[in-house]
């Protein structure tokens, strides 16, 4: 089940990182480059920016820009060809999601299946904020009582 392309590319990635670590590749950026004939530098920048937003389907923790998997190389080639054909970034993304679903996008679009993904963290933050407000209010109500008492009521249950 697990012996898919994943392993070979993971090993390759490890090797690549090791090579980087040894300082062999220090001077060049760590793009998994297939030499693509870019017309100019801005086109290359656009390509790099776009492929960084796309997820490699094989090593899913790598972007299309970074992955050494053969499928990633094929998809980079296709993305490049579509750029040459004058397609916009959105058109290229639509072409990919038609085949590989939203999974290829690191930035998933907002729809019914992803609202928890988008708003979950905000909900947790709100809940945490509300909890803090409740605790602080309760303490400030207790504080004057403690000041008036002859002995401080230090070891009560509120004192965590």
């Amino acid at each position, binding site marked *: 089940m697990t012996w898919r392309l994943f392993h070979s590319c993971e090993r390759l990635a490890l090797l690549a990182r090791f090579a980087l670590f040894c300082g062999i590749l220090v001077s060049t950026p760590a793009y998994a480059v297939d030499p693509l004939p870019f017309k100019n530098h801005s086109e290359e920048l656009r390509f790099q920016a776009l492929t960084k937003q796309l997820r490699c389907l094989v090593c899913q923790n790598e972007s299309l820009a970074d992955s050494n998997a053969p499928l990633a190389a094929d998809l980079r080639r296709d993305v490049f060809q579509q750029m040459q054909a004058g397609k916009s970034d959105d058109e290229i993304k639509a072409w990919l999601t038609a085949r590989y679903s939203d*999974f290829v996008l690191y930035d998933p679009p907002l729809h019914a299946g992803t609202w928890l993904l988008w708003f979950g963290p905000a909900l947790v933050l709100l809940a945490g904020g509300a909890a803090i407000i409740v605790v602080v209010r309760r303490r400030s109500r207790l504080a004057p009582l403690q000041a008036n008492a002859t002995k401080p009521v230090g070891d009560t249950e509120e004192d965590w």
Partner: protein
Amino acid sequence: MNARLLPLAGFALVFALLGFGIYWSQSHDPREVPSPLIGKPAPQFSLPLLDDPAKKVGSAELAGQPYLLNVFASWCFACRDEHPILMSDGKRLGIKLVGFNYKDEPDDAKRWLAQYGNPYDVIIADYPGNIAIDFGVTGAPETFLVDAEGVIRYKYISPITPEIIATELLPRISLLKQQAAK
């Protein structure tokens, strides 16, 4: 509520969340990318035969009957696990079994089939991997059930098992045959 229990409650909540995450990842392989192509027409293609690259077979030739498209390659370890199942149960499916040789050296593929046997009715070869991308293939093995109208009805990622044949493939195939008989 006793406020001293509040941190414990918070911890229990986080614990439950993480525990659910572990439970979920046990039963769901994150690499099994959901296919948006199910229920949609399979891509149009025409690919050379593995045995005879001069001849091509594609969606036009395969149309009219349901078929099972099985993505395999000699470099694919998991395909070796799947292969005996296809050899023993492939005929039991009652539909055409199409081998899709994915990004493979033809000689390696032929040697592999000579060694382990050939369960396929026809084998097409996608050396550059372009048609595989149209099918949303992420690796091998992957299996597609395509109906007589050329619509993808089902996709399975990972090696096929006897359970998958019994619970997923055969019921769908018999349904397709019932629909065809009407």
